[in-house]
């Protein structure tokens, strides 16, 4: 092969088509388009929810009506028409499955093409998979094993019916209904999502995992996830996504709430690879997500994310470090290509004493994409001895893309130690030269450097996920990651 230069890489990136673009034809039970109080009530009815839940949704809907879409993010897109979206879609054949044989074979085929065959997952490493196809969970595995430990891991609609006391107590405590435009929308219309409760002192024996897929054209997906780690418990939660190629923009406005009570630890990892639009920037998923965790005393929440998909991303997994000695972490890789736009980062709100936070953010932009880091580190007056370290590095490929950094640092306590550093660079010519000199071809060298650039974050992913993350990086930057 002739010399592989960065220009070649760029060309390859531009022409790279979305590999996982296919569409499964499953009869769906879709609501007529539009949003009104009636639709909210209908969703609630459909899910056989108790009255308090319906009221909670309606309250959120009323807040939402008064809110306007946020404009501050560094992204440009056609605003979705919220009256042109169907707010509920679920696969229509939905008996409760006990074994895989009962699952619609077409669905199984989808999973196979995604490379996450259930049988394989069952055998492998002990990952319990709660698959969300469109909005309703259709299969839950390993429920029994988890049940023995007292761990509840189920669709949130089931939790609302079976564990109302927990849902009532925690839902909306970290992300209130009126938190922001998309959180309010989600609160009003969320169709399903995952619920997880780890009892006191229990270490969850396996990684909990959910695969999200957006399937039915024209339906937005409104996932709601609630993870509660009771005192002294530990859980590692994985979330991964791919979506089929559709030309219409699809809206995704999820809400994730994490609650880590005293001495608890939650590790939340995400791999996001939704359809980013074609290379002209047509189509693709709008990803407007609100993720936030609350740490009580000595608790720890760690967010790890690998963002390679979506046309527009607007996502800031945050930690409220309320309890003394609590710890928040954020590790992120965001890759944008073609016309993708990502505005992502984190918020670390230090309220308790001796709270610590770490932010490592890596952005890689190629093609015509725009990649922004936006973060907030806030040290409140009572947060004695708070400590933060932030690092955000950007790698640019070509001069049609952009990398931006918007870090906000607000310190109101003299004992705080806050450090922030950011760099922007391209793959250094001397780095490449050094590799070439040692007999490493340019293509391999680029792979090596990009890999090294992302390593700090990739290392934070759980074993079971790291492989997939690597795969997704490959898809986004194929030809560079070897």
């Amino acid at each position, binding site marked *: 092969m002739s010399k592989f230069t960065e220009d070649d890489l760029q060309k390859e990136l531009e022409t790279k088509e979305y590999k996982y673009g296919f569409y499964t034809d499953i009869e769906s039970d879709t609501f007529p388009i539009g949003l009104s109080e009636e639709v909210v009530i209908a969703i609630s009815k459909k899910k056989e929810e108790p009255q308090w839940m319906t009221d909670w949704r309606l309250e959120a809907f009323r807040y939402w009506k008064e809110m306007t879409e946020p404009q*501050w993010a560094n992204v440009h897109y056609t605003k979705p028409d919220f009256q042109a979206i169907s707010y509920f879609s679920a696969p229509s054949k939905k008996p409760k499955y006990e074994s895989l044989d009962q699952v619609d074979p077409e669905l199984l085929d989808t999973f196979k093409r995604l490379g996450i065959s259930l049988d394989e997952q069952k055998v492998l490493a002990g990952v319990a998979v709660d698959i969300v196809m469109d909005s309703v969970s259709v299969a839950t595995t390993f429920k029994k094993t988890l049940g023995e430990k007292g761990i509840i891991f189920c669709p949130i609609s089931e939790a609302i019916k079976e564990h109302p006391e927990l849902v009532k107590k925690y839902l909306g405590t970290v992300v209130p209904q009126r938190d922001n435009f998309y959180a309010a929308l989600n609160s009003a219309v969320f169709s399903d999502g995952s619920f997880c409760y780890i009892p006191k002192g229990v270490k969850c024996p396996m990684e909990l995992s959910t695969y999200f897929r957006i399937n039915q054209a024209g339906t937005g997906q409104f996932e709601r996830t609630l993870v509660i780690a009771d005192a002294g418990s530990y859980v590692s939660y994985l979330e991964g996504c791919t979506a089929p190629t559709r030309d219409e923009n699809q809206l995704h406005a999820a809400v994730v709430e994490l609650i880590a009570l005293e001495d608890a630890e939650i590790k939340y990892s995400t791999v996001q690879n939704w359809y980013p639009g074609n290379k002209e920037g047509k189509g693709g998923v709008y990803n407007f997500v609100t993720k936030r965790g609350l740490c009580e005393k000595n608790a720890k929440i760690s967010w790890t994310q690998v963002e390679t998909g979506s046309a527009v991303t607007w996502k800031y997994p945050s930690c409220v470090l309320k309890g003394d000695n609590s710890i928040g972490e954020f590790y992120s890789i965001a890759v944008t290509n073609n016309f993708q736009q990502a505005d992502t980062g984190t918020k670390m709100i230090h309220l308790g004493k001796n709270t610590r936070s770490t932010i490592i953010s890596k952005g890689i932009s190629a093609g015509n994409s725009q990649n922004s880091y936006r973060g907030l580190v806030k*040290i409140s*007056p009572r947060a004695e001895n708070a400590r933060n370290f932030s690092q955000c590095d*950007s790698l*640019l*490929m*070509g*001069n*049609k*893309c*952009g*990398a*931006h*950094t*918007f*870090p*906000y*640092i*607000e*310190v*109101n*306590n*003299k*004992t*705080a*130690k*806050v*450090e*922030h*550093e*950011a*760099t*922007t*660079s*391209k793959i250094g010519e001397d780095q490449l030269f050094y590799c070439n000199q040692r007999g490493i071809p340019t293509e391999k060298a680029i792979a090596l450097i990009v890999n090294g650039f992302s390593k700090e974050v990739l290392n934070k992913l759980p074993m079971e996920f790291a492989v997939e993350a690597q795969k997704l990086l490959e898809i986004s930057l194929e030809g560079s990651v070897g």
Partner: protein
Amino acid sequence: MSLKDKLITSFFAFEDYIDADSHIHELRNIAIKSFEEKGFPTKKEEAWKYTSLNVLLKEDYCVFPKNENTIEFKDVKKYFLHEIDTYKIVFIDGIYSSFLSETTHDKVDVCLLSAALSKPKYKAVIENYFNKVAKSDSLTSLNTAFAKEGAYIVIPKHREVEKPIEIINFATGNEAALFLQPRNLIVVEENAQVQIIERHQSLTSNPVFTNVVTEIFAEKNASVDYYKIQNDNHSASLIDNTFILQGQGSNASVHTFSFGGKLTRNNLNFYQKGERINSTLKGVTIIEENQLVDHHTLVNHIAPNCESHQDYKGIFAGKSTGVFNGKIIVEKEAQKTDAFQQNNNILITDNASINSKPQLEIFADDVKCSHGCTIGQLDEEALFYLQTRGIRKKEAQALLMYAFASNVLESVKIPELKTRITKLIANKIGVNLGFNL
């Protein structure tokens, strides 16, 4: 009547009275409209998120002081860099004081904007440069609308001004509250060099609100060193809007020393139009009580092979608030840019706070851009070390603070000015450092 209404009504009276050619009148009218539309900035605007002007806008300011006020040189000698010979452009309550000034037309022009705006021989320069780099944000527009007086400095090709130029604005306090809007225009032509020191000083505790705009043009291979000393009374507030347009191969540096004032906002904007340009932005902020200092910097890299270097240090005591918002924009064509930005802060007391937003917007790939921001305290171990050597705690703290700020001081090129600032720092920290560097 709110300050905004008052300013707009007085504008029309002012327009009749001013002596300038029609081009300037047109600019003024556009500017006042722009201000009328935008009004004073509020906290809702991203650029003013951490700084509220509300407290300043409540005062009933005198916009046009009627009387010409005089002051004795001996009373204000200490505000001049009197150890060395300098050119001086002095304004008292916004009005030029020929008695205290020392201007020149010998080879270089160091004189007044009012003269330049009205005399035909300056027309070409005014048309080429006046209001050409200033933005049309609300406060700059307000200044443009009322632009009448300020320093006018033009250094022709290949000239080096042999001594520094001091621009000093005094407020006498003869008015209960005073609103000042000086406007400076500085043009440094090809290969020319200049050093300028700017200072705003209020002589009593009557409130003063200054909204100054300075436009600086550094042409090809020119060199400009600009020093801002902000050590005003705690009743005086300053909004400084500085715009610098640099041409190929030029060097420009701005040092800002903020120790005084109630509210100080520095909007410092650099535009690099040409290759191999070097821009330096440095600042030391040491404040206490209820003071607020807000540094907003912008470095816009437009052409390839340029450098920018920013270094801001802040020490915050009492209930003071520090704000830093540094923005580096690297445009598509600006390959091989080397941009560096650093902001270090020390919080001394519990009630002090700092809000920092170091921002990068990069559109070119072959660049080296980095920024760093730290917030912390004096090193306990270093303090202890000094104390074990018999240095009292207060002095030890002062030494460490001085060391913290010293790399900004190092690049001050006028030795007497460096000594002066060292003394100001010692004063501010409340100790005698007992050494001169």
